[in-house]
């Protein structure tokens, strides 16, 4: 009895299938096919959602990675640009200045105080104590110790540092001393000195170390000391912490007129008790 029912069910279903099969070419089954796909659609949606989620997370990961790589590359490019600018500045400096410049690489120093730096050239390269160290933005310091293969430079952040400075028009001549790390001070300002904050000061050329017309720094602030005298605080143009190279040069002492050289006079005769001299050219 059961078998008969099943047989009937089977035959009726097969008959229905054949009927559907026969009318395949005559009837449009498009909507019916679409309807038949409906039970599978939830599975497709779930898988699509999972794929999309995984894909999105993967895309996010990839984008994060790409961004990190781009940032590293960007930093490298910035570094290269900075280095390129620096090297170009070094070349320009070398061509614009008439002094003999010896390039040297900074190999060490005391980063906390920045009072001294060590360079990789010494007496073998023709360096001597008392030579001046400069770079693109201005003066760095002077050599205080010179070995065969290295030298120690006393920078403008050293408490022994001092340099003769003047303004751009060379009207006012002053001396700049160490004040604190990264700052110099100019004391003994004459009453007629009219300089304001932001004005640049240059080396005056007095003394045997620093050539004239090198930038020292800009006036940061005008301050009043305890005894009522005014002094300028100068921010040096060259930052010691970021230095990688320096130029070593020496002032040509002969070419600079000294205020203290004695004039040679030629005696031309006596005038009473007085002896007459003629200034020699």
């Amino acid at each position, binding site marked *: 009895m059961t078998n008969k029912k*099943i047989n009937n*069910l*089977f035959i009726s*279903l*097969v008959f*229905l*299938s*054949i*009927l*559907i*099969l026969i009318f*395949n070419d005559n009837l449009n*089954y498009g909507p*019916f*096919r*679409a309807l*038949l*796909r409906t*039970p*599978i659609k939830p*599975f*497709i949606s779930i*898988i699509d959602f999972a794929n999309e989620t995984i894909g999105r997370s993967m895309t996010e990961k990839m984008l994060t990675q790409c961004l990190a790589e781009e940032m590293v590359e960007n930093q490298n490019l910035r570094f290269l640009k900075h280095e390129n600018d620096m090297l170009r500045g070094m070349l320009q400096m070398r061509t614009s200045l008439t002094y003999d410049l010896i390039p040297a690489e900074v190999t060490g120093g005391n980063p906390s105080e920045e009072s001294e730096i060590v360079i990789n050239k010494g007496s073998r390269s023709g360096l001597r104590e008392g030579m001046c160290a400069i770079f693109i933005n201005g003066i760095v310091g002077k050599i205080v110790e010179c070995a065969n293969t290295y030298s120690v430079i006393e920078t403008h952040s050293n408490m022994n540092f001092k340099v003769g400075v003047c303004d751009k028009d060379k009207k006012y001549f002053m001396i700049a001393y160490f004040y604190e790390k990264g700052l110099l001070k100019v004391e003994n300002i004459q009453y007629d000195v009219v300089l304001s904050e932001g004005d640049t000061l240059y080396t005056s050329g007095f003394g045997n170390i620093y050539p004239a017309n090198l930038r020292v720094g800009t006036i940061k602030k005008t301050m009043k000391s305890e005894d009522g005298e005014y002094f300028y605080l100068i921010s040096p143009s060259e930052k010691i912490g970021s230095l990688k190279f320096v130029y070593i040069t020496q002032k040509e002492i002969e070419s600079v007129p000294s205020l203290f050289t004695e004039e040679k006079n030629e005696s031309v005769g006596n005038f009473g008790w007085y002896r007459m001299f003629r200034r020699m050219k």
Partner: protein
Amino acid sequence: MIYILWTLILLLSIFVSVIYPPLFSIGSIVRIDILMVALSLFSLYLSPYFTLPIFFIAGLIFDSFYMTPLGYHSIIFLAISYVIFIIKPFIFKEKFLFQMLVISMSVFIYRLTDTVIFFPRIKSVSYVLNNLILSPIATILFYSLIYVLVKILGRAMNIYGRRKQAS
């Protein structure tokens, strides 16, 4: 309730067979007929009052996705299901060997029909080889793997249950 679960499993097997055939294939050529495995096992263990109508609909769904003439897969599935229903009393359906025989027979019938109908269009010996030999073997191997995994899992669960009871 249990029949809803079986229906969902069947729909899932249709979905896997239709939407992701490369996932269950060897080199995208030798396909594993998951639906035939499901069909064989359903026909072996479930009532024909459930399996016959459900395979009729499954065949129609299959046709709607494969763009074969509507009703083609229904007839094949119904035929296979009915054959299994007939031979069911004469075999030990709990035995793995008989299960494998039933599955291989189902796959073979399905693939043979497929080959006979579509061979004039394709005319490829490799197509015949794939359909009649490689696909049934791959399907049986797949089922063996699943069977072993289920057995191991069942045994592990059994041991875990006993230990828990003892403690």
